[in-house]
């Protein structure tokens, strides 16, 4: 006759996962963020592409004067700032998932993620500074390159 083990018998320790990625609910918040930011990005990016590629003369109209004309308005400054931050967080988080999926070796994974986070910081800081310190009418520049409202 076989005996069934006493349910209170000590259990073998749970096998530890081969590698620990996160603790707590961070992954869940990331998952929710990907969806929430995706919906907002759809509006922001489609708007960006429409104004810059479809409306008026499309791409052929883009030059310094075009950018200055847009960033003279706080509306487009806020639009671009939101787009910059949301797209960079969404994209960085997405690429992080992909690195976790394919880079098996610890060293490689670490190096890839370090470069990813470095690129994130550089691009977000640079992009934010550019929007906030932009001068549509830099002194000493030829007037024909500047937007028409720079006549002073």
């Amino acid at each position, binding site marked *: 006759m076989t005996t069934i083990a006493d349910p209170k018998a000590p259990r073998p320790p749970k096998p530890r996962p081969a590698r620990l990625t996160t603790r707590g609910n961070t992954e869940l918040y990331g998952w929710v963020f990907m969806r929430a930011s995706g919906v907002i990005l759809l509006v922001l990016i489609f708007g960006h592409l429409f104004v810059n590629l479809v409306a008026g003369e499309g791409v052929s109209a883009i030059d310094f004067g075009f950018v200055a004309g847009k960033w003279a308005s706080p509306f487009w400054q806020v639009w671009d700032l939101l787009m910059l931050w949301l797209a960079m967080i969404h*994209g960085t988080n997405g690429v992080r998932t992909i690195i976790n999926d394919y880079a098996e070796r610890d060293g490689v994974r670490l190096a890839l993620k370090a470069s990813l986070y470095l690129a994130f910081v550089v691009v977000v800081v640079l992009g934010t500074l550019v929007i906030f310190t932009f001068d549509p009418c830099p002194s000493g520049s030829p007037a024909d390159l500047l937007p028409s409202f720079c006549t002073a």
Partner: protein
Amino acid sequence: MWSWVAHRVTGVAIFFFLLVHVLDTSLVRISPEAYNDVIATYKNPIMGIGEAGLVAAIVFHAFNGIRIILVDFWAKGPKYQRVMLWVVMGLFVVTMAGFLPRHLMHVFGGE
């Protein structure tokens, strides 16, 4: 399955584009001449086609992303996920049909 691969590939492609895009846009802080010179080198048919490809990647990623969200949050989402993939492809074709002629017109001259 292929839609999942395409979603990944387009996501990564857009990400790398964005890195370069913020760098070139930052030239506006150096001088109007620096920005205009670099943008001028973009104004050729090859880049124009590249822009069309980028827009195609975004349009697919965006519509398919909405489909993923609906599969996750809408009670009937999983049941209709295949139908929604057809809707994504339909919307993709319609959007690109609206965009491409106008963009190519801007790129290849005319007005």
